[in-house]
C-alpha cells in the first residue's frame, strides 16, 4: 500500500499568536527554513508543495502557485487542499499518493494561516441563503444545537468535558509554542462557570482564533533510508469522509464520518483503538473530542462521559490527549489549525516531546474535522495513524 511507503522526515511549527505581525508568506518561509535545517534537504530538492486552504489566501484562485512563487520553489506538483481542518492530514495523504505516483519525491506540506491579521475569504455557501438571515454565527451555534441534542439523547456530564479542557490546558502550559495567553491553569469549576455563548456551549469549550503555521516534509520511505535519515514517521492508516450521510434528509448529528474514516484508518493500519498510544484529535469544541472517542470506537456511542471519567488523558496517562494543548489551549491557527495536532503527534513520535514526552511512542492517532454543513455535524472527517520507523 502506497501510504506505508511515505515518510515524514521533518516537522516545523511557529509560535501561535493572537494576531500575527508577520505576513503569511513569512511564516511559510520560517517553516521552510526549519524543515531544510532538520531534514538536510536543499531547497532545490523540494519538488512538491501541498497547502492547507487558508482564510488569508482564500480569495486567491492561484494560492499554491502564488505561495510557490513567494517561497521561490520550482515544483513538479502543487495544490491546495480545501477540506477545512482535515486539510493538514489530507495533505499528507495526498503527498503520499503523489510520491507513489512518481509526481514528486519531496513534498512540502505547509499549513499557514493568518486569518486574524488578514482574512480575504469570501465563502460561497448555504449560509448567505439559509442561516445568515437568522443571526446564526456559525460553529458556536452549530455546536450549541448539536450539544443540546446530545444532552437530550444521552447523558452528558459537563464535568467530564471540563476534565478534557483542564487536561489540554495542562499540556499547553508545557508547550512553549502555544498561545501565551492560554498558558494558564484552569479548573473544572472555571470551565463550568465560563461564559455561555450558545447554550450549552461555553467560552472554554471553544477555540480562540489565532495566527500561526506548521509544516512537514514528506518523502518516499526508501528515499529517506537512502539518505541515511535515522528518524522518520510513517503514515500507516488513513480514512477521509466528506458529507457523511449526504443522502438523508434527517441525520443524528451526534454520529459523524469518523465512524467510516476511522474504520478504514484502523483497518489499513491493522490496529484497534485499544492499541493507540496517543490521541491527537482535531478540537474546535471540547464535545468534538468526546464525539470522536465514540465514533472512532474508544467507547460506545453515547458513553463518552463515562469513558472520560475513567480515563487519564494526561501525557503520562492511559490515552495521552493532544499533548501540545490541542487547538483549544494552544490556539487555532485559522484553517491551518489542523496542523497543530498533527505536528505534535509527529514531534512525540520523534521523541522530541520534552517535558510532555509520552512514554509509549509505538503510534499516534490524529484526526481532522472540516467545515460545518447545514444543520448537521461537520462536512469532513479524517483519521490518520502514524508510526515511527527508524
Amino acid at each position: 500500500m502506497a501510504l506505508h511507503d511515505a515518510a515524514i522526515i521533518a516537522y516545523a511549527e511557529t509560535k501561535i499568536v493572537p494576531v500575527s505581525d508577520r505576513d503569511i508568506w513569512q511564516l511559510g518561509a520560517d517553516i521552510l527554513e526549519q524543515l531544510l535545517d532538520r531534514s538536510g534537504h536543499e531547497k532545490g530538492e523540494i519538488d512538491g508543495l501541498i497547502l492547507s486552504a487558508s482564510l488569508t489566501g482564500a480569495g486567491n484562485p492561484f494560492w499554491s502557485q502564488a505561495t510557490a512563487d513567494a517561497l521561490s520553489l520550482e515544483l513538479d506538483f502543487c495544490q491546495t487542499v480545501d477540506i477545512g481542518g482535515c486539510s493538514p492530514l489530507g495533505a499528507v495523504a495526498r503527498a503520499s499518493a503523489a510520491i507513489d505516483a512518481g509526481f514528486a519525491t519531496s513534498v512540502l506540506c505547509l499549513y499557514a494561516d493568518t486569518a486574524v491579521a488578514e482574512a480575504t475569504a469570501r465563502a460561497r455557501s448555504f449560509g448567505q441563503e439559509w442561516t445568515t438571515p437568522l443571526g446564526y454565527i456559525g460553529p458556536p451555534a452549530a455546536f450549541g444545537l448539536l450539544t443540546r441534542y446530545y444532552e437530550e439523547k444521552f447523558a452528558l456530564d459537563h464535568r467530564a468535558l471540563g476534565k478534557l479542557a483542564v487536561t489540554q490546558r495542562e499540556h499547553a502550559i508545557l508547550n512553549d509554542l502555544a498561545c501565551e495567553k492560554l498558558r494558564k491553569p484552569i479548573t473544572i469549576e472555571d470551565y463550568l462557570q465560563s461564559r455561555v455563548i450558545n447554550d450549552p456551549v461555553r467560552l472554554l469549550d471553544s477555540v480562540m482564533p489565532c495566527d500561526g503555521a506548521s509544516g512537514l516534509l514528506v518523502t518516499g520511505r526508501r528515499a529517506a533510508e537512502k539518505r541515511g535519515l535515522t528518524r522518520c514517521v510513517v503514515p500507516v492508516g488513513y480514512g477521509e469522509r466528506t458529507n457523511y450521510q449526504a443522502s438523508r434528509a434527517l441525520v443524528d448529528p451526534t454520529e459523524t464520518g469518523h465512524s467510516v474514516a476511522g474504520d478504514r484508518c484502523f483497518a489499513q493500519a491493522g490496529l484497534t483503538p485499544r492499541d493507540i498510544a496517543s490521541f491527537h484529535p482535531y478540537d474546535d469544541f471540547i464535545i468534538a473530542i468526546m464525539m470522536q472517542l465514540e465514533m472512532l470506537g474508544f467507547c460506545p456511542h453515547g458513553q463518552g462521559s463515562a469513558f472520560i471519567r475513567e480515563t487519564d488523558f494526561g501525557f503520562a496517562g492511559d490515552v495521552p490527549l493532544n499533548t501540545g494543548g490541542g487547538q483549544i489551549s494552544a490556539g487555532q491557527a485559522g484553517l491551518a489549525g489542523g496542523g497543530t495536532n498533527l505536528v505534535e503527534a509527529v514531534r512525540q513520535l520523534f521523541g522530541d516531546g520534552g517535558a510532555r514526552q509520552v512514554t509509549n511512542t509505538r503510534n499516534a492517532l490524529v484526526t481532522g474535522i472540516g467545515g460545518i454543513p447545514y444543520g448537521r455535524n461537520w462536512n469532513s472527517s479524517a483519521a490518520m495513524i502514524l508510526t515511527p520507523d527508524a
Partner: protein
Amino acid sequence: MTDFNDLTDLDRPLPVERSFSRPFWDATRERRLLLQYDRVAQAFQFYPRPTSIYTGRASTLEWREVSGEGSIFSYTIARRARPPFRGHEPFWLALVTLDEGVNVMSNVIQCAAGQMQIGMRVRPHWAPLSDGRHLLLFRPAEGGSPSG
C-alpha cells in the same frame, strides 16, 4: 411575556436567491411554503438544492406545498451575535423537523425560556423581508398569536 427577543424590529440580511431556489422564495411572497419532493425516493428534502439528495438527478424533483408545522429537533440560545443581530440577544435558534421529515433552521419567536423543549410542536410564522419576500420563522403551536 418573554425575556427572549422576537427579532421583529430587525432589518435582516436579505437571503441570496439561487436559480434553483427561486420557486421557494417566490412562494414566500404569498406566505406559502414549498419543499422539494423526490418522486422516486418519495421523500422531501431541505434546503433546496440543484439536485435530489436521493437520486443525484434534478429530473426526479418537484415542488410541493406543505403546512410548515413541525416539532423542535434541537435548539440553542444565541447569546452572542453579529450586527444587525447584536444587541438583540438572547434569541432562539432552532432546528425544526417539519412533519414531512426535513430539518429547517430558524428562529423561534413568542417562546418563553421555560416553554422551549425538544419535541415541542411549532407552527410557521412568516416574517416580512424588505423586498417582499418572507422569512420562515416558527412559534409554539400552543399559546402563540395567529400567524402574521
